[in-house]
């Protein structure tokens, strides 16, 4: 239906036919939105069920095991870093730093991305080099700049701890303690770190009082290509297109800048491009951007207003914005409505040291 197969002489007809077919559908996301709480046109913004791979269906045993592993510093070379060092529930599952600090506090080049809703990412990491949470889980452990652990020693530690032996057997019966089951357990825990009950979500579900007028106006500006133009990349439902864009940050203008996605996909457009992060729970994860260069959401708006301070190889979806101070404030207020209510997080009891 959407493909026209024709011989060359009739090419003009094909173009006309397809233009007609596509012309009937709404051109832009916001054109069919009705900005009323609970309106059917907005339901694409609700988070679907958490996806998981066929061979790693989450259950309580897997999640509990993964939670212990996620918080266990004994899985690092110096015995003092866990996944939670950089992805802490105290800081919206990030670390509150501009860019991460790794092994021996070495300052790394990129900000720690939040774990929140990473279950929905089609690719993991700022440059998308990992395909799934399972693929990603062991990366920081193995990295000499991060947790810097010899994985066989980490596995031996787990195998020598009777509590872990039992927990692995319950979670992955007969599969043993190995790289794969370690990664699967951590990924299962990460799939429980979900934000889907923000004021925005409640407003989308029909609660008129969940967002105030300013926030509703911020949402309108957010999806309007002539105003905020935000949803072009921060799209429904997880406020990410799972795509890669060079947004023209100052750090891109420095000597030997971080090439981002280009190192993985050597396509010119990917030079300096990074994955669109989710905006859910965004108030908890300052500073912002992959280089941590924006301290506040207002700083973020100031950057986007310029259309990018370095224009070389800029994402074609970036453009200079025309916003009043009030409109910028409304956009920031809207982003504040994307944070789900926070509850104290219950830490796991780690298996005791068995020397």
């Amino acid at each position, binding site marked *: 239906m959407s*493909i026209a*197969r024709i*011989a060359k002489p009739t090419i003009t007809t094909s173009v006309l036919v*397809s233009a007609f077919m596509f012309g009937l559908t709404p051109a832009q*996301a916001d054109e069919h939105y009705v900005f009323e709480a609970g309106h059917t046109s907005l339901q694409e913004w609700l988070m679907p069920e958490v996806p998981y791979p066929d061979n790693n269906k989450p259950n309580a045993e897997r999640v509990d095991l993964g939670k212990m592993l996620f918080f266990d510093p004994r899985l690092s070379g110096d015995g003092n870093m866990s996944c939670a060092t950089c992805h802490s529930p105290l800081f919206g599952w990030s670390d509150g730093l501009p860019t991460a600090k790794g092994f021996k506090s070495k300052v790394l080049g990129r900000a720690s991305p939040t774990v929140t809703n990473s279950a929905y990412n089609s690719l993991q990491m700022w440059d998308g080099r990992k395909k799934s949470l399972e693929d990603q889980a062991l990366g920081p452990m193995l990295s000499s700049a991060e947790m810097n652990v010899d994985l066989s020693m980490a596995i031996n530690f787990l195998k020598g701890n009777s509590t872990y032996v039992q927990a692995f057997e319950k979670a992955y019966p007969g599969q043993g303690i190995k790289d794969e089951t370690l990664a699967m357990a951590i990924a299962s825990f990460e799939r429980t770190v979900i934000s889907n009950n923000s004021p925005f979500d409640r407003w989308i579900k029909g609660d008129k009082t969940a967002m105030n007028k300013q926030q509703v106006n911020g949402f309108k500006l957010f999806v309007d*290509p002539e105003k905020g133009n935000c949803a072009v990349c921060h799209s429904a439902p997880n406020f990410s297109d799972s795509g890669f864009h060079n947004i023209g940050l100052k750090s891109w203008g420095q000597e030997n800048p971080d090439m981002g996605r280009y190192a993985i996909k050597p396509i010119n457009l990917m030079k300096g491009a990074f994955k669109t992060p989710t905006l859910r729970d965004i108030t908890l994860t300052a500073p912002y951007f992959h280089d941590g260069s924006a301290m506040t959401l207002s700083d973020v708006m100031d950057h986007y207003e310029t259309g990018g301070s370095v224009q070389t190889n800029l994402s*074609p979806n970036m453009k200079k914005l025309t916003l009043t101070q009030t409109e910028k404030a409304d956009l920031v207020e809207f982003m504040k409505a994307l944070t789900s209510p926070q509850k104290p997080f219950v830490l796991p009891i780690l298996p005791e040291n068995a020397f």
Partner: protein
Amino acid sequence: MASKNIAAILSLVISTSVMAETVEVGQKDKKFTQDSLDIKVGDTVKFTNNDAFFHNVFSLSDAEMFDLGSYPKGESRDVTFTTPGEVEVECAIHPEMKMTINVQE
């Protein structure tokens, strides 16, 4: 002699252009409108962006490497496939956008 050669070349060009087809593949809702496509050597695929934002089209497959850059809604770019084989076509901006083109002799 020379004009005879030109005539021969011309007739060849005309006959291949009659045989070759142009197939249109759209980019819509962050998807290619076809998951896979069978074409013949010499056929052209016209990639049209039907979304309100920019897409890219590229392939790093041995059979046909290309990078069409990025272009907005309503614009198209053509690729003529000259080597038989399987070609993975992707959008660099949106890695979930993927399709396969089987180029047959």
